[in-house]
């Protein structure tokens, strides 16, 4: 029992280290109340144009070019679970049932994935903190390395009860919560809905989640119906999210240079 407490403490430490290692380009850090800088403090016309211009176009970051229906099919995204495991609320997203195995409608998946990637790109463009969550042991390392490569955060370990809801006490006052949570799998290890979905809805944080045919998509803000168990499919999702986030951040740097702005976190004297 002592060993378990020790490992829990170590996990907490590791999580906080993970949290502080990857800085997004905006320079936001988990910090104490004294050094918090509100991101909207210095708003002038050029900053406002930089921030609001991407919202005018339907696909500013051209995320629809990153994948096609054939890519999803080759990555076996359309394969769901068996008919007995089907969740009632996933029925609208299913194409049909072939010999008792649910087949997910890839036309719908394409639209949902485009919306999800577009939302992620915009949030990353505005310097939002993104958290990747997946409780699947086989993809833990992949998700963590994906988060590290885009400069965002990941949590693939045991989700402690008060992680989001009791954050100021667990991590110190003035902690900044994520602005978007991406679930690579919305179930935990006992095939129940992940606590993070309900917690994110409680803390008014939007979620993007890959929902398989046995998941509950009702509370996920931008669900993406698709296979969450095949390694090829999960690698594809990680690759797509990484590419969109990097694209969005590069675009932000480009736009700032174009309009002759410095980084928004430095205060203007």
């Amino acid at each position: 029992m002592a060993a378990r407490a020790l490992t829990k403490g170590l996990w907490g430490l590791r999580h906080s280290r993970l949290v502080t290692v990857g800085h997004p380009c905006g320079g936001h850090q988990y910090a104490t109340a004294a050094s918090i800088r509100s991101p909207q403090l210095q708003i002038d016309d050029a900053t406002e144009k930089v921030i609001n211009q991407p919202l005018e176009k339907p696909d500013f970051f051209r995320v629809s070019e990153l994948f096609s229906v054939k890519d999803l099919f080759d990555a076996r995204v359309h394969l769901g679970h068996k008919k007995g495991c089907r969740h009632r609320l996933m029925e609208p997203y299913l194409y049909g049932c072939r010999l008792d195995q649910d087949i997910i409608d890839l036309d719908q998946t394409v639209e949902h994935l485009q919306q999800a990637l577009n939302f992620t790109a915009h949030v990353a463009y505005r310097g939002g903190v993104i958290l990747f969550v997946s409780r699947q042991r086989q993809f833990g390392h992949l998700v963590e390395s994906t988060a590290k490569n885009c400069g965002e955060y990941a949590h693939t370990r045991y989700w402690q009860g008060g992680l989001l809801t009791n954050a100021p006490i667990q991590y110190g006052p003035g902690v900044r919560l994520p602005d978007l949570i991406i679930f690579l799998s919305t179930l935990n290890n006992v095939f129940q809905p992940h606590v993070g979905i309900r917690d994110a809805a409680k803390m008014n944080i939007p979620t993007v989640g890959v929902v398989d045919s046995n998941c509950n998509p009702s509370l996920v803000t931008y669900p993406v119906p698709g296979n969450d168990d095949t390694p090829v499919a999960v690698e594809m999702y990680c690759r797509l999210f990484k590419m969109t986030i990097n694209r969005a951040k590069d675009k932000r740097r480009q736009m700032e240079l174009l309009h002759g702005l410095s980084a928004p976190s430095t205060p203007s004297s």
Partner: protein
Amino acid sequence: MAGSRLERFGTVFTRVRDLMRSGVIKPSEKPIWYDVYEAFPPKRDPLHVKPHTRPSTKKQETVPEIFYREDEARAKFYEQYGTGPRPFDLSKSSFVSTCQRFVDKYTELQSHSELDGSALFEETGKALLSEGIVLRRKGAPPVSAESRDPVLELKLTEMLAEQQSVSADSEETTHSTHTP
């Protein structure tokens, strides 16, 4: 920062919008994702759906079963020939299995010629044989399987009887040698 932790009422967006409207959340504290959600809302509002606790008696089949016309030919093929001589290689996306070649040939012959049923089946088998694929019929007749066991059993009992008689003889001989 103020917030509303009622995940079962309304969506994330409606709660934040109403909090801002009432003045609880100041415009300077507006979340980053708010404008993005407003510009690109999801297809379905992420409202919480209450699960049905009472067991529902009606079960409507809203998800259709996927069956094709070629499935009849596929079923007959698997019944007669098993999986076929070549194993499936799923690593190639353009892989055509023996069953698929059979079905393609079957549909081709069906559209061209006027044959039907088992005659068409035989014709397809012959056509594939001419292309070089040998189809071996699966399913050994059940009689031979049963007849094997009694033969084995007999052998075992014979062997046991032999062994016993041999050991009895050897005992007798040793006994005879010992007794002067």
